[in-house]
């Protein structure tokens, strides 16, 4: 069936004129684009560039404000180290947010799993690898629980994870008795738990294994989301769940797998957090849930799902780290750091909305 043939055989009377229809490609006068228009178009085509630009700009600004102390290799590696745990949680959070969900329980799962592995390895004498395995299985199971509540009982992810956040936090306090496991006890009983606190010295920079782990987690998830069919399905579900279902995707099964994977990533975070903090503390990372959402939002991933790159969340986490470090080195009070992060969230989403308005 060719175009010429089809135009030659209209069946309805009013279609006769199609024979003479114009076949040239349409062209229009375009008005001169302003510089702002060009930026808008560029960012629309390259959404991950927004957090990258903000990250670079903030590094430059704080470098000027705080001088060489900020730019020292030690400080830069410290920033990466400081954001590594929230970064890993933000990776898990990104998975959920890409499906148009939200997970308020990521940090609670992580802390609970660090307590479980600590309890088992340090206080009950279970071999450390086995204790960690229990934590990985537990984290995945916690994610599956969230996923099943979302898909089977059809509850909004916000409500499900608001509930499980409290449940996991209470379990964590119960299991730990609200007591930390001391650093020396971990060192003598199960040094493997603190593996990710080790570092590689590069000059004065201290690159911890935990920092490297964070990057590895992001690269692995980026690959899964962008290079596999599963990743396409995650985006399709976040975009329009009903359409994805009709197009033949097992949406519920995929959603449960997303929550399970997020839980597993939280368990990875649990192991890394023991190395980062040095001890197992049931009270740590209480704000981690919201901080992970902050990183994701600043990274330009849409809360409505289906849009954004997981690498944005990595840059988002780094932006928060750069702001905190830069403001601290510039001698600004902690409360103003929080103030700045608040504005950062609002501005990030405002820019995101502006970019989306571009007519492609």
């Amino acid at each position, binding site marked *: *069936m060719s175009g010429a043939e089809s135009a030659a055989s209209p069946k*309805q009377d009013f279609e006769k004129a199609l024979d003479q229809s114009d076949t040239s490609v349409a062209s229009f006068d375009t008005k001169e684009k302003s510089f702002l228009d060009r930026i808008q178009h560029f960012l629309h085509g390259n959404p991950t560039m927004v957090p990258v630009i903000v990250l670079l700009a903030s590094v430059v600004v704080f470098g000027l404000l705080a001088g060489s102390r900020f730019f020292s290799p030690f400080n830069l590696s410290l920033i990466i180290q400081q954001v590594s745990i929230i970064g890993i949680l933000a990776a898990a959070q990104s998975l959920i947010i890409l499906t148009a969900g939200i997970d308020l329980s990521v940090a609670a799962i992580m802390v609970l799993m660090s307590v479980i592995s600590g309890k088992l390895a340090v206080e009950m004498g279970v071999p450390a690898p086995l204790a960690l395995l229990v934590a990985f299985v537990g984290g995945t199971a916690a994610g599956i629980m969230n996923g099943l509540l979302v898909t089977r009982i059809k509850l909004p992810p916000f409500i499900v994870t608001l509930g499980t956040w409290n449940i996991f936090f209470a379990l964590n306090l119960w299991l730990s008795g609200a007591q930390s496991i001391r650093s020396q006890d971990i060192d003598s009983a199960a040094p493997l738990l603190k593996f990710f606190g080790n570092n590689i010295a590069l000059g004065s920079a201290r690159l911890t294994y935990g920092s490297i782990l964070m990057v590895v987690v992001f690269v692995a998830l980026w690959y899964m989301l962008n290079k*596999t069919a599963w990743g396409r*399905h995650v*985006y399709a579900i976040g975009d329009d769940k009903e*359409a994805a279902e*009709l*197009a*033949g995707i097992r949406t519920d099964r995929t959603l449960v797998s997303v929550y399970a994977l997020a839980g597993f990533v939280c368990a990875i975070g649990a192991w890394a957090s023991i190395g980062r903090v040095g001890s197992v503390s049931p009270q740590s990372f209480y704000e981690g849930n919201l901080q992970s959402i902050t990183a994701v939002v600043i990274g330009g991933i849409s809360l409505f799902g289906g849009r954004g790159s997981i690498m944005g969340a990595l840059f988002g986490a780094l932006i928060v780290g750069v702001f905190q470090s830069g403001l601290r080195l510039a001698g600004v009070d902690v409360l103003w750091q929080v103030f700045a992060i608040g504005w950062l969230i609002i501005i990030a989403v405002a820019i995101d909305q502006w970019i989306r308005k571009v007519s492609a």
Partner: protein
Amino acid sequence: MNPAVEPVLKARGLVKRYGRVTALNNADFDLYPGEILAVIGDNGAGKSSLIKAISGATNVDEGKMWLDGKPFHFNSPLEAREAGIETVYQNLALSPALSIADNMFMGREIRRSGVMGSMFKMLDNKEMQRIAREKLNELGLMTIQNINQAVETLSGGQRQGVAVARAAAFGSRVVILDEPTAALGVKESRKVLELIQDVRSRGMPIVLISHNMPHVFEVADRIHVHRLGRRLCTINPKDYTMSDAVAFMTGAQEPPAEAVAA
């Protein structure tokens, strides 16, 4: 239609209720090999519910269905698709932020050969883009520069074209089209109608749901008139006029007895 020929798709006594609304009330359905069957009916007559029942998108409350004489029961659109029934839904079931190629291969992606495919599940984007481009060209409906364009950047007609191309490319037993020309201009509608005839000439039966009487009477071999949740009658477009059909489907006129029996 020769009664000795076994229908490709047959349904008897389908009932579907949504709360207190009855969408299908003892509906019957027959699709014979190689034919274009048009389904017409007023808004709310239950056409879409009928289509959703045979394409696996909804579970019926009662009734039986047969594909090639074998009873079947689809729990999801995926199962219907695996059985060779492809459907273009009214809402098109496309993901706006994903590319044309991604959408065409949604749920049936092609992986790389070798270790990258089997171990690392890596997609073969080049191959999928090549096939997608080929299918769209076959359809001749596209003036698309870039197969990696997001579907949301396409016009309504182009989106429809992508959805129709997807069904035509992958359907092996039955293709179901729900209002395929509703969003299209004169020229694009003509292309879709030709595509429909092209698909039939390959021996594949088609179910066409449409409100456009000229289109229905032009391409359909038989017309299934749906009214108040059930099949009212089946007519041959050569024996009746468009106004007859409209009269049947709106209840202005009783259908002839032999058409009801068919």
